């Protein structure tokens, strides 16, 4: 008897043969049990593909749920903090969802495929929570993670490449909108969404056609700088965009063991996605109480003095007390700034109140330490007009 495939340490995505052929560094990591690429050739080349031409990223392991049925809108509207009551078919909404204590379980995107047909994409897995929350609603919830392939194609030439591959009229698709196209000879759903804060798309199709799509897109993008990108390049782009990530910038509330580790949407800078006008949603009472009482934590986007990324650094106030920690940090090649996402205790970080980071870095085996002043930044570190322009700008 041969060892069943499922007992192997890592599974392969439908694109594995292509990823393996392109992955010159052999730097892999485990993403939800699948072998995924950290870096194909060099991180900076891949990063500049995102910002200068286009990058192609395999989204297969991302968690995807299909939610269907008469009450699917009401169900999702109770689940997430944002108001979905007017979301039209063809729209996508970025949402967070909370437990009853108003602590964030995860964030993700909600696709309205039809009045009674929805999709929820997230980093973490939530079937148990989704099913408990479905009590009393006429909905069917189905995890379709491995039944639906996804590719992110992100960067200024992404629209041009997809159009070259057959997605006629794609330039008219506004941000957070999705529509059906035939592209690389495969029928697919294309949404103008992404994790880079740039012009970019995510495409969703039958995994059986994955190789055809990959090959077709790379061919269509041959003269437009398309290249496969790994997670490290994507991570720089998402920090520049100011996007937070579950398990990195916050702990999904269901995984929290220690008190005070979970975060509310307000504490993650996501207050604008909490809509108290809708009467009932998970965590509403707790979040209302928090709004009155004030939050305990605050998420900050920081411009850190110097050039050493402030990874895992403690954040201090003027009185040299530790008030928080950096959760993500990188040098931003587009903003030409040293940027970080940090979680600090209130009242710190309301404005530029003298926060600084203790940054350790190594030069010729020797550790050095600097005290780097931090400036609080409102909004993303990199925010090009092409992100929102409709029709999409042609490059």
């Amino acid at each position, binding site marked *: *008897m041969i*060892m069943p495939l499922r007992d192997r340490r890592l599974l392969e995505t439908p694109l594995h043969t292509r990823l393996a052929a392109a992955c010159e560094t052999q730097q892999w990591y485990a993403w939800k*049990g699948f072998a995924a690429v950290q870096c194909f050739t060099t991180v900076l080349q891949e990063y500049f593909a995102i910002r200068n031409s286009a990058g192609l990223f395999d989204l297969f392991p991302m968690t995807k749920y299909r939610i269907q049925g008469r009450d699917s809108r009401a169900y999702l509207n109770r689940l997430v903090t944002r108001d979905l009551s007017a979301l039209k078919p063809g729209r996508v909404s970025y949402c967070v969802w909370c437990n009853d204590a108003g602590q964030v379980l995860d964030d993700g995107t909600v696709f309205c495929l039809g009045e009674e047909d929805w999709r929820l994409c997230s980093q973490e897995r939530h079937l148990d929570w989704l099913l408990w929350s479905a009590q009393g609603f006429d909905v069917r919830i189905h995890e379709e993670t491995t039944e639906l392939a996804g590719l992110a194609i992100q960067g200024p030439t992404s629209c041009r490449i997809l159009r070259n591959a057959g997605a006629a009229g794609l330039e008219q698709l506004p941000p957070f909108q999705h529509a059906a196209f035939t592209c690389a000879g495969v029928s697919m759903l294309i949404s103008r969404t992404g994790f880079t804060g740039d012009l970019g798309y995510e495409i969703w199709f039958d995994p059986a056609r994955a190789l055809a799509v990959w090959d077709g897109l790379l061919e269509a993008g041959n003269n437009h700088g398309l290249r496969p990108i790994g997670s490290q390049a994507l991570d720089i782009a998402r920090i520049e965009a100011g996007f937070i990530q579950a398990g990195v910038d916050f702990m999904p509330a269901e*995984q929290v*063991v*220690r*008190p005070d580790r979970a975060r509310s949407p307000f504490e993650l800078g996501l207050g604008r996605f909490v809509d108290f006008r809708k009467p009932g949603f998970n965590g509403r009472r707790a979040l209302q109480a928090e709004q009155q009482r004030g939050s305990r934590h605050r998420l900050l986007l920081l411009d850190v003095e110097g050039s050493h990324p402030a990874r895992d650094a403690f954040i201090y106030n003027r009185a040299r007390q530790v008030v928080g920690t950096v959760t993500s940090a990188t040098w931003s090649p587009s903003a030409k700034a040293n940027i970080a996402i940090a979680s600090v205790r209130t009242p710190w970080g309301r404005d530029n109140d003298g926060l600084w980071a203790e940054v350790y870095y190594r030069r010729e085996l020797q550790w050095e330490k600097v005290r780097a002043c931090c400036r609080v930044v409102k909004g993303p570190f990199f925010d090009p007009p092409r992100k929102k322009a409709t029709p999409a700008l042609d490059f």
Partner: protein
Amino acid sequence: MQRYDAIVIGAGHNGLTNAAYLAKSGLRVLLLEKNPYVGGAAVSRELHPGWTYSNCSYVCSLLRPEIYRDLELARHGLQVIGYEGGITFMRNGDYFGNYSDAERHHREMSRHSRRDADAYERYASDVMRQTRLIRPFLMRTPADPTSLKRRDVMELIYMLRKYWGLGEHALYDTLRFWTMSIGEFLDEYFESAVIKAHFAGGGIIGTGLGVYSPGTAYVLLHHYMGEVDGSIGAWGFARGGMGAITRAMAGALRSYGGEIRTDAEARQILVKNGRVQGVALANGDEFHADVVVSNLDPKRTFLKIMDEKDLPPDVVRRARNFKIRGSSGKLNIALDGMPTFTAVPERHPLLVADLHFIDSLERMERAYDDWKYGRWSRDPYLDMLIPTQVDPTMAPPGKHMMTVFVQYCPAKLAGGDWTPADRDAFARTCVDQISEYSPNFKDLILHMEVRTPLELENEVGLTEGNIFQGELTMDQLLFNRPFPGYAQYRGPVTGMYMCGSGTHPGGGVMAAPGANAAREILMDLRRPPIVPGDTSDD
């Protein structure tokens, strides 16, 4: 007649640990053991030429790392090797594999229930929260809640602070968790029968309770609060068997100048004018000391080796009422080769770990029903391992040793006492269950040691063969272990102490009771505090 500073009775892991600390502090210590070998229930013995059995306890997790490190057990030859997970074989020919790698674990759970796979995160963090609450108390003496002594008050404050520090929701959960059954607890998270059955095992092992008996959720915690190399809840093999642990402890004790006498059964703790005088052996020898520590269980300590006239009647009554029920048996088997299992391929990574053959809580509850009425389970819950896949020292190359823990097995049968025929029938029941899943297993058996509670009691000296030296139920835990008013390791007679698993924090090869008792003794003798406290740094 010889005089010592302290005499410890019983060379199990707690007696050894206790004696080692007393000797390390500079006392002249004598450790007495009735058997010709040390180890108690942590022994390795060669009963079939070439094969070494871990005759009683068989895997290691609870052994406190503070003690492992402080007594330099590694230097004295101990090596504990962690393993991952386990398998529950199912009646339908399938199996559930429990991996420690999170993603494989999720994938395998999804095969049985996608929902359960996701619910596991909630389960794991809820159990870990309770684990983090209990762990700091393992290397501490329980506070007496009725005492106004400064130390007790400070300990109570410490305890409340830890409890309060869980956060408000965890406060509700803790009280429920400590009083619930493991079955009900698992029902709150999972729907798959086999997943529940797999996780429920820790709630009943060694316990005279069923999966739906209140209090068994805590027993699960007891199996989850250990660690191997910082991995909480993980279990490991002691290289050379569990006797390697006690051998290393004996090495430590001797290196501190302690003396061990085997074949030296204590007959009575000598008491005069409310003070201990020493110990009289069964062979008539007497050894004198101002401190006598009993590592025997509370029933044996107070009802067998102490004169009831020397004890307050209340203690005698509590000792008689102490719950220490035999509920498990053990098979140790020498195998001519590695058994194959129909459901999984050869060399499946989880075959190294715990193997079980009960795939539903209902079957587990029925196994308990048999025990309640004085029968061994017709369809028992087995916790089976083949450590020789990892350990090259316990069987010849290509041959294997199998350890089979059996739940439930009563100390007394409904029809009367155990007979050799009963014992054979009991073993046959277990072997038959394994054979259903491993067709070549029976043919590989070269030798088998069968241990019912009777053998465990007679050889090891555990009353009724109870592996924990007393049930781990709330009425016998913390400041109530073994009895209210006697949880701080001091007996009812001046100079007499208890250091066995019958004291806080309870059973398992943990060595915390032995160390905690040594801390109290050294405090009473006004000697420097050398016993480590809780050093977990998470």
